[in-house]
């Protein structure tokens, strides 16, 4: 009986909408209202800030058109290939550097300092090497993806519990068995973290390359909308792209169980 009373009281005390949700709704509504006001004010050039209705209509047209999905498929394939090549090569180099102290001290500094340089500047070289087609976009995505994966894996490799390595050796595991049964499972979180970072930069690298020189893909559609000054369509594409990028990032993190890592 006492339990029932307590439950009833707790239920009654809880508000229908939490203050945080309420504030979020208020902020979203305020931003939308300010946007619409700005769109109708005439203070800016026409269509620089299109009305919400125009953006909504463009979003509907975009998503109901097969052509968009064709270009999305091309970009997704380029990013997937870049992630695969860059991820695997980054993993291999990361394991090599993480396992060997000498190699790490000889070469890791180059990766560390080259990692954050703007990769898009390599695009002219990629065009020369791989042509103007999807090859150069995949290559730029691969180059972008390689560094975070390699650095994350190398750091993860050094953090593996020594006990696990000694257990593997005491079972006389071969190099491959050590990699497959000890190193990779123990490094799951750094690998997923590296892949997550790699996915983000591969996506940026590939799409930027598409905006620079391409005739298909989402990057091409965005720069095409800019060239024809179709602003509602450009806003619609950027909204979809941001949602997809944030979603893919969150999905990779969730698949790797990154949200379950306890931070001390």
């Amino acid at each position, binding site marked *: 009986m006492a339990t029932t009373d307590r439950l009833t009281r707790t239920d009654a005390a809880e508000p229908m909408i939490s203050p*945080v949700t309420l504030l979020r709704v208020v902020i979203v509504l305020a931003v939308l209202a300010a946007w619409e006001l700005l769109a109708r004010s005439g203070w800016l050039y026409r269509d620089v800030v299109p009305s919400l209705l125009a953006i909504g209509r463009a979003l509907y047209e975009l998503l109901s058109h097969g052509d968009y999905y064709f270009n999305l498929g091309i970009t997704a394939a380029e990013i997937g290939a870049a992630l695969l090549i860059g991820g695997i090569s980054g993993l291999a180099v990361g394991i090599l550097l993480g396992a060997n102290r000498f190699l790490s001290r000889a070469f890791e500094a180059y990766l560390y300092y080259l990692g*954050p340089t703007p990769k898009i500047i390599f695009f*002219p070289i990629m065009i020369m090497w791989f042509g103007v087609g999807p090859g150069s976009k995949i290559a730029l995505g691969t180059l972008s993806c390689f560094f975070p994966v390699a650095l994350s894996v190398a750091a993860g490799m050094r953090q593996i519990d020594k006990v696990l390595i000694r257990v593997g050796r005491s079972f006389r595991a071969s190099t491959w068995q050590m990699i497959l049964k000890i190193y990779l499972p123990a490094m799951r979180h750094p690998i997923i973290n590296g892949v997550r970072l790699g996915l983000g930069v591969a*996506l940026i690298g590939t799409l930027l390359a598409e*905006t620079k020189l391409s005739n298909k893909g989402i990057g091409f559609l965005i720069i095409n909308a*800019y060239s024809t000054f179709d602003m509602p369509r450009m806003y619609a594409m*950027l909204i979809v792209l941001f949602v997809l990028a944030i979603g893919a990032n969150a999905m990779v993190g969730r698949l790797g169980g990154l949200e379950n890592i306890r931070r001390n």
Partner: protein
Amino acid sequence: MTATTSNRTGRRSLFPALVGLATLIAALLVVELIIQLNVVSRFIVPPPSEIVASFGRVIVEEHVLRRFLLTLGECLTAGIMLTVFGIAGGVLMHRIRLLQQACETWVAAMAAAPLVLAYPLFMVIFGRNAWTIIMMGFFAALPPVILKTIEGMSGTRKVLVNVGRSFNLTPAQQFWKIMFPAALPTIFVGVRLGLIFALINIVGVEFLINYGGLGQLINDLAERYDLAGTYASICFVILVSVLFFMALEKAERWLRPID
């Protein structure tokens, strides 16, 4: 005896770095050889000797110093803006707990969003000028500064806050004398990350919109099919970026001597 041991340790710690450098030089020599032997066309990959020789020409004829100062100016403007607005935003969100709970995940999501892809939109809003580049660098680099400011302010040790209270400090004094100095090292991590993101985006957008300093130089030379010059300018941008990161790292170490 101790001197001999430390000498040996010093030589041993230098040896891997020397091997790394020797490998790099050997790789360049191999590339030079295969190009000279026409295994790879010099119209696709210019010989490293040609790239080294073109450095002087690129520096003098392409006004590299002026371009470098232009890019540096854009970086500094974006850096000042993101330091002011990023720290102010982080402090505001830390002080108004409800605002932090409502918006922190949005800021984190913004950090994951490929904001640089909105550069055509910025070109429409600001025009094809330096402000597009600066604003692009600013927006792309803002989230880490906000997030690290919140982290730094939240991580202030309770004992420091209690010391401030025991001295009956006003909220403003508590902030300027206790909270902000304690959070400064973490805030600087955010500013360092922000400046790195800003530099990456600024050079990238310069290249993409063919306007401004070092990024435009690469695009210009590539469009003129000056291959050796293109490679030399890319090497120059990499060198500038690396020096920039090293300087930021040194400044961070100076701010956090304990770590």
